């Protein structure tokens, strides 16, 4: 195992732990993006550039966007049900 690979493995382990430890979902999305970038680095270090290419877009863009949209929808829902309660 080369030094680069060892460093990549450690960074992935740390970033993965960080994702779990963030309590606020909104901030968690961004930490998740950073975790994805570290995974990209890992795949690249292990000579899998094909996988790294997919991972960089999926983790930095596709997944965060979907989670952000879902979070916004949940907030909307909460706000609407609050309004309905006030109207009653």
């Amino acid at each position, binding site marked *: *195992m080369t030094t680069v690979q060892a460093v990549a493995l450690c960074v992935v382990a740390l970033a993965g732990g960080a994702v779990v430890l963030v309590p606020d979902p909104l901030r968690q999305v961004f930490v998740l993006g950073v975790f994805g970038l570290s995974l990209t680095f890992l795949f690249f270090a292990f000579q899998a550039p094909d996988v*790294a290419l997919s991972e960089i877009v999926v983790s930095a863009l*596709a997944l965060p966007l979907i989670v952000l949209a*879902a979070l916004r929808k949940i907030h909307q829902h909460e706000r609407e049900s609050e309004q309905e309660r006030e109207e009653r």
Partner: protein
Amino acid sequence: MSRRVRLGLFLLAGPGLAAVLVLGFRGLPAFGDYHGVYGRIVDNFALSARHATDFVTALNFDIRAFDTLGEEYILFAAAAGVALVLRGLREEGEGPHPAPPQQHGFAGASDALRSLALLLPPLLVGLGGYVVLHGALTPGGGFQGGVVLAAGPLGALVTGRYLAFKRIAPHSAVEALEALGAWAYAMLGLGGLVFASRYLQNYLPLGIPTHLLSGGFMPLNSIAVGLEVSGAFLLVWTEFLDQALISGRGDRS
């Protein structure tokens, strides 16, 4: 269970689990130890018999192209399922999406951000096209390039202008793109049945290795998958963002 009992249980079970894990890891093969036969055969075979320099693409789009057919249709079905469920939630049929009341831009977008939104889409689409077309030569191919292609229109979203995104990637075009990609891949496979008597068998000249048009029908398969993947991602994003940004704006009940 109180916190103390749980902690005690963990202190009891934790070391046991650690010991078993260490024992298990000691029995693993050494790092980088590879005994697979298939990989070595493909390594010796992809360049000479398929004229592709990226063996992952050779595997995806020629040697095991049938697996890719399955993968592609999994994605197709998943995207179609998302669209179906989310449209059902909105109580909407096959009709066009409702016109949003106002432009969802956020006022604080600076000039730098605006120019970035203008620059990003063409750059990303160009890069995606490059990755798709050079699948047989360098790392990349239909799946990777398709995701990059789909990211292009999203560049317009960095200023929060969802309508600009929808203008670059209209809903009907996205749907057509996805269906076209899925259809094209199946048809390329049928071509193998007609010209080479086997489904998804190569029937085009292999060309000179390292040239853009090499690897037989790999570039075509790559393009078909690229269209399908970008269409599927754009469709899922459009449905999610429609839910989050347009529908449920308060006039529904």
